[in-house]
């Protein structure tokens, strides 16, 4: 194996603190915040889409369809450049304001993933029998009470495995912030690899770490799915 004869495992060991303390922290923070934000916003979008008000369903549907037709890389670029102008407009500032890399990517991923989460939550809401909604209204609940206490808790619970599966996809997708030269886990590995001319070691190590985390997570989701299936 001539390939591995000059394989430098030391470089990985030496850069571990940087890779995980800087890189993985960013990756996991972005994944967690974008998941929570995406589920919340996605639930609102799903409710808008299923509401009987005029215009709102069409608006929500166009948002979801446009977002889902665009590549994430394009959306990352677009929002990265757009956000300073939106910030200027909101704050009524004289010039486009500066938006940091972390907040920019958090907003981008939340808005982008909300489109995908809204489809999941829509399926979840529709999986609740109509009779429950009617029963809720019959005992005098308002729309928001009925959603809050009857529909959403069950929808969320039924969709939990799908939400976690989407979260794993999101975790892998965060690596695309590479295009903005941000130091996420892959970005950190890439920087070390380029500095020391050790791209082979760093990319293989990054692939292994992503693989182990995603595989473990998806196996846990499978177990969760089995448990929820029995409970129902």
């Amino acid at each position, binding site marked *: 194996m001539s*390939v591995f004869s000059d394989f430098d495992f030391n470089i990985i060991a030496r850069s571990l603190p940087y890779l995980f303390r800087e890189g993985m922290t960013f990756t996991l923070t972005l994944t967690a915040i974008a998941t929570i934000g995406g589920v919340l916003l996605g639930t609102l979008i799903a409710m808008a889409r299923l509401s009987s008000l005029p215009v709102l369903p069409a608006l929500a549907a166009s948002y979801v369809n446009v977002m889902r037709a665009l*590549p994430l890389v*394009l959306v990352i*670029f677009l929002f990265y450049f757009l956000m300073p102008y939106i910030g200027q407009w909101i704050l009524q500032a004289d010039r486009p304001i500066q938006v940091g890399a972390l907040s920019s990517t958090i907003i981008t991923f939340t808005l982008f993933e909300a489109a995908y989460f809204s489809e999941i939550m829509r399926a979840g809401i529709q999986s609740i029998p109509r009779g429950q909604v009617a029963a809720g209204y019959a005992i005098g609940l308002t729309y928001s009470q009925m959603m809050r206490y009857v529909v959403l808790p069950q929808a969320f619970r039924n969709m939990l495995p799908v939400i976690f599966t989407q979260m794993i996809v999101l975790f892998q997708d965060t690596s695309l912030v590479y295009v903005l030269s941000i130091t996420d886990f892959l970005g950190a590995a890439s920087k070390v690899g380029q500095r020391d001319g050790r791209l082979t070691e760093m990319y293989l190590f990054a692939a292994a770490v992503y693989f182990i985390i*995603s595989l473990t997570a998806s196996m846990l989701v499978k177990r969760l799915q089995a448990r929820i299936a029995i409970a129902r």
Partner: protein
Amino acid sequence: MDYHWNWAILWAPSPDGNGTYFDMLMDGLKWTIATSVCAWLVALVFGSLVGVARTLPFKWLARLGDAYVELFRNIPLLVQLFLWFFVIPEMLPHDWGTFVKQLRYGPFLTAVVGIGFYMSSRVAMQVSAGINTLPRGQRMAGTAIGLTTAQTYRYILLPMAYRIMLPPLTSEFLNTIKNSSVALTIGLMELTGSARAMQEFSFQVFEAFTAATVIYLLLNAVVTIGMRMLERRVSVPGFNAGK
């Protein structure tokens, strides 16, 4: 927003010397289409083989198929592209590695292989799911009338399974188109890459990305409509298992 809009920039000559900025985006679109179609062929071929293997009555083969799917599904596409582009050539014997690195269409070929294998794991899942949703009686009926396993798949299971799979396969093809944008990181000047370059040269950020957005939406619509027509063309009267 006091952004200075200038849509005429699309018709201004681009610094790459090959016409206007609009031509540049159109070149990008061509690379996006070429990459997506070729990667999709790779994904269909390998995805079908692995997907079928996972439904065959050999435990070890199904296990191997599962391992294949997990391997390509649990590593981010961007990392997989970097492995194909930077790492694999280093692992080949020296002369081969040099040959691969000097390939004229290196980024394109890498993107086709990388995205193709990445998508093949998703196609494989759809193929096995499609075959598994068929009534078990169909496989038994095939055996009962004396067909071999290969014949059962060729004449009974696969023709119906692929029809059932058409809608999910359509969305996987749309994913392939979207995923082709990741190849800009290895230097492929596809649509998103072209929009990025246009933004860097012209400083007209929003014209560049809005134009690319519109082109992606159109491409998406064309593929969706085309696949719906195909679905109607190949549907078997009276058998609406796909619905």
